[in-house]
């Protein structure tokens, strides 16, 4: 077994980058900070790709059967509370963790290179790269962590980096509000995550993931039945798993905790590409995959995962059809695709989900980076201001088209393969969810090409040609290559929950329906948006009620605002503040006032008058005399 000890360097190098840039970047290294940050992530990416090569393809690599038993590398005992319960820092080597470090570091590198050109001239350039380094460290640490609590620590760190990066333009009130909203919603979900961790670790008496999974799925143990510890008719382990899923749903913007993701588009576009498309938002999916054996053993919770994923996918796709801000469309598209990954896991399609995660990272990051280039050219996010850009930005046009074809699931692009696997798994598990997935893939093609045609066609070509920077074009090309060819990687031979390679070919007759629906969606989009016309407006007014409902994102945000402002603030927040100000502070003030009064009363004893002193002196002597003569003898 080859030595993977260098894996520890992969997250630690960006951390070093963060520390150096954070401390010295602003003063001394302003212009080189981009290069330093990129160089550090470049080394990390190299190490990660080398590790992936060693693990999957190299000599002495672990065979497929062994790969389903992850092994723990580098364990450091950190906080031992008791012999069973100790928080260790350990790195777990397992197919999905190796794949994730490769994906995360590669996309991170692309974003770092892209930002060299995109964020040039920013005043806080060094801070930006410092935060990116912090994020890379947190995400890489999260996917490598082998202890459940360590996962939680990195989870929170990722949330913190996201907050810092969304609020990067801190002088914009919308950005600040968006950062707060993201942090608060995910923090609220993380409460569920924490309680879930505590329940699961209590039941299994360990926090180490591998041991935990082993103990809870011992045959004959039946922990998931209610004959074991249970509460309100559901077993404790089921509660734990569903609470952990709530945490994952918050981070992955599943319904109904999705409200933060569209607002998070206030951050810089490369940040959206990295965090809110390719890496951080898939953390919830990764968490469920990490504990997949447990979820697989508990059908009740698995159903929750399945339906939440399906609802999110459909809801997001419907909303995306009406949005006009390019980044918001992409945000809802992300939510929809993560819904796919989630219901794939819910249908026990582990490989399918991970495959889609892999390909999605490429084409979604590509979409966002292209969007960044477009926004810089047009100086606006609104689709109505764009149009006819295909002659002025040829490279961006080509890459955007590749990405749209990939996400719509058109062969031979990568999205086709991963989506087919997901739909196959869904078909085997639950027919309703299969039809939802099928319909949503048609919608996906429709809204993506609506976006494509509105940007690059629709109006006659105009404007001067856009000069794209080299550092911006290199990542676009690399990601486009990935989006095209990643589908050919034989994932089913590389990873599996139980060691047996997956059966079934993608090119079966099942593949026809989604592709046909996708082509239909593309056709409708072309009809409506290729030429400038009033057909979209007529369609919208025809379904006016539903259109408005979807345009306002089904008023979910308003419901949340109502609950927080009217109910939580007024019923809980205000009384709590009143108690704090009047009762708690009042008690402290009372103690202080009483002390001051007593002291003012006592100070009269030191009057400075000799006769008073003589009196006190004599009184004391008389008292002592009485004491000693009559009481002590």
């Amino acid at each position, binding site marked *: 077994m080859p030595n993977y000890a260098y894996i520890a360097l992969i997250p630690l190098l960006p951390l070093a980058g963060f520390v150096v840039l954070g401390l010295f970047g602003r003063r001394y290294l302003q212009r080189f900070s981009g290069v330093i940050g990129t160089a550090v992530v470049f080394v990390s990416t190299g190490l990660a790709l080398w590790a992936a090569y060693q693990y999957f393809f190299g000599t002495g690599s672990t065979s497929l059967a062994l790969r389903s038993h992850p092994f723990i590398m580098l364990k450091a005992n950190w906080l031992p509370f008791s012999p069973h319960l100790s928080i260790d820092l350990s790195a777990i080597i397992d197919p999905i963790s190796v794949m994730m470090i490769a994906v995360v570091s590669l996309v991170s590198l692309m974003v770092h290179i892209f930002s060299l050109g995109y964020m040039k001239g920013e005043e806080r350039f060094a801070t930006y790269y410092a935060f990116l380094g912090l994020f890379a460290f947190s995400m890489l640490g999260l996917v490598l962590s082998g202890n459940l609590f360590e996962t939680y620590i990195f989870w929170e760190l990722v949330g913190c980096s996201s907050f810092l990066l969304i609020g990067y333009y801190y002088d914009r009130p919308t950005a600040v509000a968006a950062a707060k909203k993201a942090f608060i919603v995910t923090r609220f979900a993380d409460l569920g995550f924490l309680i879930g961790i505590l329940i699961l670790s209590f039941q299994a008496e360990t926090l180490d993931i591998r041991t935990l999974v082993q103990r809870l799925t011992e045959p004959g143990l039946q922990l998931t039945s209610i004959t074991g510890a249970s509460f309100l008719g559901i077993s404790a382990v089921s509660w734990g798993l569903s609470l952990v899923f709530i945490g994952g749903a918050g981070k992955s913007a599943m319904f109904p905790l999705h409200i933060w993701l569209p607002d998070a588009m206030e951050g810089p576009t490369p940040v959206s590409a990295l965090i809110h498309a390719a890496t951080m938002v898939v953390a919830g999916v990764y968490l469920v995959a990490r504990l997949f054996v447990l979820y697989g053993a508990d059908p009740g919770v698995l159903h929750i995962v399945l339906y939440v994923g399906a609802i999110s996918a459909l809801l997001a796709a419907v909303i995306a059809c009406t949005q006009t801000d390019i980044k918001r469309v992409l945000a809802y598209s992300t939510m929809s695709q993560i819904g796919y990954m989630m219901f794939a896991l819910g249908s026990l399609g582990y490989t399918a989900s991970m495959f889609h995660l892999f390909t999605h990272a490429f084409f979604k990051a590509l979409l966002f980076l292209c969007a960044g280039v477009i926004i810089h050219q047009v100086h606006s996010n609104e689709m109505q201001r764009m149009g006819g850009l295909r002659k002025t930005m040829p490279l961006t046009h080509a890459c955007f088209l590749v990405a749209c074809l990939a996400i719509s699931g058109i062969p031979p692009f990568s999205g086709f393969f991963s989506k087919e696997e997901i739909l196959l798994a869904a078909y085997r598990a639950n027919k309703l969810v299969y039809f939802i997935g099928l319909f949503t893939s048609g919608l996906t093609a429709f809204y993506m090409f609506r976006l494509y045609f509105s940007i690059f066609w629709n109006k006659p070509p105009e404007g001067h040609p856009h000069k794209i920077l080299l550092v911006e074009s290199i990542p676009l090309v690399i990601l486009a290559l990935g989006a095209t060819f990643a589908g050919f990687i034989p994932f089913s031979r590389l990873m599996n929950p139980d060691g047996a390679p997956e059966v079934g070919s993608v090119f079966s007759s099942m593949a026809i329906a989604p592709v046909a629906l996708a082509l239909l969606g593309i056709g409708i989009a072309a009809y409506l948006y290729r030429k400038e016309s009033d057909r979209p407006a007529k369609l919208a007014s025809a379904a006016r009620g539903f259109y408005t409902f979807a345009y306002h994102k089904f008023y979910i945000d308003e419901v949340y605002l109502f609950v927080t402002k009217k109910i939580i603030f007024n019923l809980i927040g205000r009384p709590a503040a009143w108690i704090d100000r009047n009762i708690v502070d009042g008690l402290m003030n009372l103690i202080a006032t009483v002390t001051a009064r007593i002291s003012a009363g006592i*100070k*009269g004893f*030191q*009057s*400075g*008058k*000799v*006769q008073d002193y*003589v*009196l006190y002196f*004599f009184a004391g002597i008389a008292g002592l005399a009485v004491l000693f003569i009559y009481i002590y003898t």
Partner: protein
Amino acid sequence: MSQVPLSHILIVSTALFFIGMYGLFTRRNMITMLISVELILNSVNINFIAFNKYLYPDRLDGVFFTLFIIAIAAAEAAVAIAIFINLYRNFHSIDVEAADELKF
């Protein structure tokens, strides 16, 4: 003097002592305080002489104590008057409550 028991003399001196204490507490004038202190010292002298006479008739220790106390009382009265004069120069009054600057 053998008809008068020792305790009677002691009671007299105790009464004189406490009269002096009362004067020390109530009089506001520095010189009257000094007068009260002299009364106290004299009561102690009576005690010494009485003890010497009744309890140790063949020794003279009480006499010597009394002599020394008288001498010291004289010295102390002189120094006290000097201090009063100095205080009078500063506060223009020999009211003992005028010199109360060492207070809170």
